[in-house]
């Protein structure tokens, strides 16, 4: 930068000055050459006819040319014999040999006049006007100076501007570098530290704890049902929930703690100088903060969270071990229905089991290890079986029958839930077709994953299955959760519309646990609602639950929907539901889920509920018949 300034501010103006000097010398040289050559020619002319009258005429002619201001001819005795122009040139005559000499603006030249034979006749004294040349030089110098000043000004301006621009660019680059560094180490959505920064903070926490001999806790947490919300309400809603989660976590923890987002709905917290008791207290605070419903588009969404806790140095002395063990604990918490779990060595075994089970589930799906059990639903008006709910079972070669609560989450995590759903639909329709062939026509309800509704080809696949088994779509009921049906994504709407157009009925499962919009409910192609068992089970002891059940039944009927009550575990439930006007019921009091052969047998006997409360004695109504 300084080199450029020196070149532009000093060297180039010096170059200007040099050029000006050369130009000035050129002008002066040209003038002197003209004066010397002209005086010689004039002397020659004067020598050819040296008569005073002729010289006078010659001088006056020359004077008219404008280059001379005075001329005089002197004889050998220095007497003036002819003159023109300014008088007195012969007086105090001082000859010039340099331009501007004597400072009188006249270049004086004295030239001998020789006759034809070479004799000296006299002397010519000539005065050339230097003014035009001086003006030319002055004009050129002025232009040069103006140009130089302009150049220096422009250079100064550009230097200042360039300096400012460079400073600005420097600031921008620094800002960008900071932003890039921040982006590299932080999550763009929540602004929380990312996995890379967490690793660093974790490492620092380990070093600090080793130095000060203090413990610290590492939390790993994820939101329950987040995937469902994200899949059904869209990523925008999911992002809003994640942002709210980050804000809530930051409100609870200390400034010295680190909250990081590891990806998806998975967060991590590093809590320096915290032992197991404190860790549990803080985890409970976090759970409480996350238990409050999230509000997205004025819609409350209760999610909850699962927290896994690993403690330094008890559960690991390096970052990767602590993270892995916190993950194991978190999974255990999730398996337990949420809440918090502190790592235990026994959990690791389950962690390995989980991985093994996921692999085996994929293989089992291909090997046909998935079976379908059926739980009957009865019509509360007629007491007859009016349909069944298909429930998946996995017949594991070594473990035996695995329940859906154990393997459905694995299927969702492994991304095979869609294939699993289609397999259940296929098996269910096949069984029901066999029953209908034997004149045992029955409705079959199958649970649907929210992910299936996002599959653009799902309706086509269902149609192919129904077509393949020549199964009537009007006997198929697909059950979806309340939050799924309330999702307003274009793909969900299209899938619903296509399924409804085929004649398939849609049932809202676990009704009452979510937040339904009645307006939306009215517009959707829903044919029935299933009251969540949590309300049914407690309705005999809790007036609020009873009121909810009754209101739900009335509401559904007013909307033209059928109502199914789940969780009927006693005769009291059955009687109450009958009294409320519920249409159908399902539960262990009526019958447990049965394998295909047994449900076929049950349907074949066309049994009807006739047993009374006293007769059932806590056993399923159909079991004694």
């Amino acid at each position: 930068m300084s080199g450029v300034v020196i070149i532009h501010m000093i060297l180039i103006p010096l170059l200007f000055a040099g050029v000006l000097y050369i130009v000035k010398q050129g002008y002066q040289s040209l003038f002197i050459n003209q004066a010397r050559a002209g005086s010689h020619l004039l002397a020659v002319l004067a020598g050819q006819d040296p008569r005073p009258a002729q010289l006078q005429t010659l001088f006056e002619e020359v004077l008219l040319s404008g280059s001379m201001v005075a001329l005089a001819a002197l004889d050998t005795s220095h007497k003036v014999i002819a003159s023109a122009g300014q008088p007195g040139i012969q007086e105090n005559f001082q000859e010039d040999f340099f331009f501007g000499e004597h400072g009188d603006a006249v270049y004086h030249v004295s030239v001998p006049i020789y006759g034809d034979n070479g004799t000296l006749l006299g002397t010519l004294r000539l005065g050339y006007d230097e003014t035009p040349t001086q003006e030319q030089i002055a004009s050129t110098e002025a232009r040069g100076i103006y140009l130089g000043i302009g150049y220096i000004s422009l250079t100064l301006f550009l230097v200042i501007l360039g300096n400012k621009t460079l400073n600005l660019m420097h600031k921008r680059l620094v800002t960008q570098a900071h932003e890039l560094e921040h982006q590299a180490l932080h999550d763009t959505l929540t602004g929380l530290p990312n996995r890379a920064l967490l690793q660093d903070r974790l490492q620092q926490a380990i070093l600090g704890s080793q130095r000060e001999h203090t413990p610290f806790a590492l939390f790993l947490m994820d939101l329950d049902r987040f995937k469902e919300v994200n899949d059904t309400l869209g990523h925008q809603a999911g992002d809003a929930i994640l942002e709210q989660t980050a804000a809530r976590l930051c409100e609870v923890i200390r400034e010295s703690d680190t909250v990081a987002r590891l990806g998806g709905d998975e967060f991590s917290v590093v809590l320096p100088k915290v032992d197991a008791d404190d860790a549990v207290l803080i985890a409970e605070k976090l759970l409480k903060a996350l238990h409050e419903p999230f509000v997205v588009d004025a819609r409350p969404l209760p999610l909850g969270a699962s927290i896994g806790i690993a403690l330094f140095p008890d559960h690991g002395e390096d970052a990767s071990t602590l993270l892995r063990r916190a993950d194991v604990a978190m999974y255990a918490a999730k398996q337990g229905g949420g809440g918090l779990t502190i790592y235990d060595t026994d959990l690791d075994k389950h962690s390995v089991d989980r991985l093994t089970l996921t692999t085996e589930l994929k293989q089992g799906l291909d090997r046909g290890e998935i079976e379908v059990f059926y739980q009957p639903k009865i019509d509360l008006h007629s007491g007859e079986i009016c349909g069944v709910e298909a429930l998946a079972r996995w017949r594991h070669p070594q473990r035996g029958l695995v329940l859906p609560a154990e393997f459905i989450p694995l299927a969702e995590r492994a991304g095979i839930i869609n294939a699993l759903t289609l397999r259940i639909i296929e098996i269910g329709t096949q069984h029901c077709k066999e029953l209908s062939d034997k004149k045992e026509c029955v409705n079959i309800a199958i649970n649907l994953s929210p992910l299936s509704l996002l599959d653009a080809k799902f309706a086509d696949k269902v149609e192919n299955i129904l077509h393949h088994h020549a199964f009537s779509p009007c006997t198929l009921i697909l059950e979806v959760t309340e939050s799924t049906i309330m999702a307003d994504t274009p793909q969900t709407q299209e899938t619903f519309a296509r399924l409804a157009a085929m004649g398939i009925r849609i049932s809202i499962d676990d009704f009452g646990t979510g937040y339904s919009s009645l307006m939306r409910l009215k517009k959707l192609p829903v044919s029935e609602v299933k009251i969540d068992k949590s309300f049914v089970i407690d309705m005999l002891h809790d007036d609020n639950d009873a009121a909810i059940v009754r209101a739900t039944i009335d509401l559904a009927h007013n909307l033209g929907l059928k109502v199914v009550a789940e969780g009927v575990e006693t005769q009291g439930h059955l009687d109450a539901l009958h009294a409320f006007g519920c249409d159908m019921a399902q539960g262990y009091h009526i019958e447990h889920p049965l394998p295909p052969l047994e449900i076929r047998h049950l349907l074949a006997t066309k049994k009807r509920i006739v047993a009374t409360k006293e007769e059932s004695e806590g056993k399923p109504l159909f079991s004694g018949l």
Partner: protein
Amino acid sequence: MERNPAPNIRRILTSLCCIACLWLTFGYASAAEAQRMVLVAGATSYIPSLTPAEVRKLFLGIVIVKDSLRIEPLINLTDHRLHQMFLQKMVFMSSYNYEHHLVTHTRQTGDPLPQEYTDPWQLISALRSRPGSITYMWAKDAQPRMGLRIVQELWPSQPE
């Protein structure tokens, strides 16, 4: 021991005499001589007088032979004013045009450029060693005791 002051006085006087002699030899010149410009050759040279036209031609690079002797012009640049006066009185050109003319002439004819001298002793040495060489000087500098001979007066002009 006190030193005798006599030898010191003698030394000072001797020095003053030397300075006076040198001034008389090189520095003294009348006002008239200061304005006189002469054509000078070596003392042993027999170059005759030249007309102003011959002097002009000679210093413009044209070959002048006098008495079977080819005259060699030496350009005297020891005094800037003298050189300008010579150009004004004899050559009738500016110094730039004169140099340009010499270079052009040399390029056209292949003749060597007249030698230029900025050191007076080298100029005098050249004049003394080369009998055909000639240059211009102030009259005050063209002293016979320097081994020089005034060929003719150039300015002020004298009738022939």
